[in-house]
């Protein structure tokens, strides 16, 4: 049963991936990607990591919707109505990815994979949680800081207005004049 499920999900994931770059409409490409990633989430659940799988799905859904927003914001032809090919060096890309896939496949098939060592615990989520909070604390901290840095960096990059625009040339204005209203203490 799981093999069948794996096969279905695998095929769905790959077709979704291929569709992403075949669709003209950006929305369709985005949700093809969403489908593909959901399938990957499914695969992860299938591999006995329910928590990580569902979290992946949860995250992917929200991410893809945000991507859809940005897609519409920046793409010239989001609905794919006008025939436009936003592609270059197709042949070169194809050859390189083909070669990479062949290399990886060869590596996968030819490598002498060792057998399984030990068995999975009953509650994998607990195992992950314990590891992250235990001996992998450094990783957790690093990831945490990375996420914090990303949040700050992304905001700074994305926001076009600096502190001088908001608080005046010598930063003397009491209340920043932002285009959108709101803001604590107002």
């Amino acid at each position, binding site marked *: 049963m799981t093999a069948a499920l794996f096969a279905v999900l695998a095929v769905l994931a790959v077709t979704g*991936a291929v569709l992403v770059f075949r669709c003209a409409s950006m929305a369709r490409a985005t949700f093809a990607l969403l489908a593909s990633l959901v399938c990957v989430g499914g*695969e992860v659940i299938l591999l006995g990591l329910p928590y990580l799988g569902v979290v992946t799905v949860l995250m992917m859904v929200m991410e893809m919707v945000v991507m859809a927003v*940005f897609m519409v914001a920046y793409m010239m032809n989001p609905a794919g109505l006008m025939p436009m090919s936003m592609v270059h060096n197709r042949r070169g890309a194809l050859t390189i990815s*083909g070669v990479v896939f062949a290399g990886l496949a060869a590596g996968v*098939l030819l490598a002498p994979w*060792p057998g399984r060592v030990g068995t999975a615990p009953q509650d994998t989520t607990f195992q992950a949680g314990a590891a992250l909070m235990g001996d992998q604390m450094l990783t957790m901290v690093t990831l945490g800081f990375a996420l914090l840095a990303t949040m700050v960096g*992304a905001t700074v990059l994305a926001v076009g207005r600096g502190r001088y625009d908001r608080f005046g040339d010598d930063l003397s204005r009491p209340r920043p004049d932002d285009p959108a209203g709101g803001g604590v203490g107002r």
Partner: protein
Amino acid sequence: MLELFLLLAAALFSVGLYGALSQQSIVMIMMGIELMIAGVITAAAALWHFLAPAAADGQVIVVAAVVAMAVEMAMGFAVTTAVFRSRDIDTADAAEDLKG
């Protein structure tokens, strides 16, 4: 079974690579990269499941990959926004100031 999973991962990775290499739009390139990271997640999960289920390292890699995907998304869109706002372009080809 492990080989199948890894083949799936390789397939996803290659399609993502093809997308990243062939697409002009920055957002589409990011989608390509997302797929590549998805491939990595699949591979990590599979390796955890088939080789070392006792240790949680595989899961940590998956978490790291997921975080990486999130960070890539965030920074990608930040850079796209900044470039778009300053240059009014959205294709990677137009932003070639670092040309040698």
